[in-house]
């Protein structure tokens, strides 16, 4: 017996021979569910295409929730017992991480998932650093992913700058350059001296990592 459902694609795409097409149409006359299947084919195909979008969104949300849960648990003050559980877990995990791999990829990803890297498109407009200020040099090397050099220049900048706002911005970039090199303590210290919203958020993030 022919399973007509298996030929819906061919019928819709016009790939059936004239005899097979006639047989398919005859089958539709007696099989209401087959007729319905043909009528709903386009919707089902569209929904199948959309399954990919739903799957991607699910992956993003799961990852986001995992990262968020970690921060939420750390910042919850009302549930004291959670603190004890968390403290014990963090302690155990810290020892585990220390012994195994202090800088595990998952751990990094969780922090990097909520960290937004500073960006200044103008920083790399010039081909070289001639005539640049120390701050511009710091940003220039950062944009080129040369974080060690960036850190060096940014440190020079914050050690001499007097303007409070520029200083705050400088510490923000310095913290980012240090995070990129996974110097977490230094990054936290630098960001603590900045009042940029992102820096404040990042300090919170690192304190609870």
């Amino acid at each position, binding site marked *: 017996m022919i*399973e007509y*459902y*298996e030929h*819906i694609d061919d019928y819709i795409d016009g790939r059936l021979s004239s005899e097979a097409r006639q047989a398919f149409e005859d089958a539709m006359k007696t099989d209401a569910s087959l007729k*319905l*299947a043909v009528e*709903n084919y386009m*919707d*089902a*195909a*569209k*929904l*199948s*295409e*959309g*399954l*990919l*979008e*739903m*799957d*991607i*969104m*699910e*992956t*993003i949300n799961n*990852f*986001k929730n995992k990262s968020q849960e970690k921060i939420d648990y750390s910042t919850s003050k009302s549930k004291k017992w959670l603190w004890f559980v968390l403290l014990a877990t963090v302690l155990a995990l810290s020892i585990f991480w220390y012994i195994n791999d202090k800088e595990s990829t998952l751990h990094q*990803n*969780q922090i*990097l*998932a909520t*960290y*937004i*890297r*500073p*960006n*200044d*498109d103008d920083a790399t407009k010039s081909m070289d650093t001639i005539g640049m200020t120390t701050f511009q040099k710091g940003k220039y090397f950062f944009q080129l*992913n040369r974080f060690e050099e960036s850190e060096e220049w940014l440190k020079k900048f914050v050690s001499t700058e007097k303007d409070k706002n520029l200083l705050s911005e400088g510490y923000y970039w310095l913290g*980012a350059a240090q*995070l*990129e090199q996974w110097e977490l303590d230094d990054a936290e210290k630098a960001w603590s001296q900045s009042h940029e919203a992102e820096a404040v958020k990042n300090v919170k993030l690192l304190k609870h990592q």
Partner: protein
Amino acid sequence: MKEIQNNVESLLGEIRSGKTGRDKIITQLYSDGKLRGSILSVILKMGGSKEDFDDIFSIALMQFVKTVMKRKDLVINYDLNTYITSIAKYTLLAQLKSKNKNTTQLVDANTVMTENPENLVIKKDEMTLLHSLLETLGKNCKEVLLLWGNGYKMRDIADIIGYKSEEMAKKKKYQCFKTLLIYLEQNPEIKKSLR
């Protein structure tokens, strides 16, 4: 991100290789600080706000992955960061247009636009509505239909999911397609929203 950008071809291959590879790349890109920074910078430059970031970034990633999966001959001429950021620009422009905002002055001369990315067929608010569908279908059916719906051939589907033959993948697809049709019949509101 450095190593990802150095190997765009293998990254595209990994996205096309099935759910495990796809998820791995999605989470890598989602947690990429440089990518997040350049997308945020674009959003702010174009008059959007930090609150728009999550939405735009998620949509841009969805469009990127979908474009990679649907266009097997896709060639990316820029580095990946620029490519995804340009999709985000495209997404934001579309949103601003739908809000009737004047967008002509927002596209500056330096804007790199890719050819249009694949459009999304499911609206954000429909996703919650469709949650029950995922439970109805189950893991394997979802992947078979998802690949079929995005232009994969039965032979490729069999390879990716690990069925012994193309015939077996075909059988599975029809079984799953039947389940999907029944679901649509039982949920006319979804059928309506798709049209």
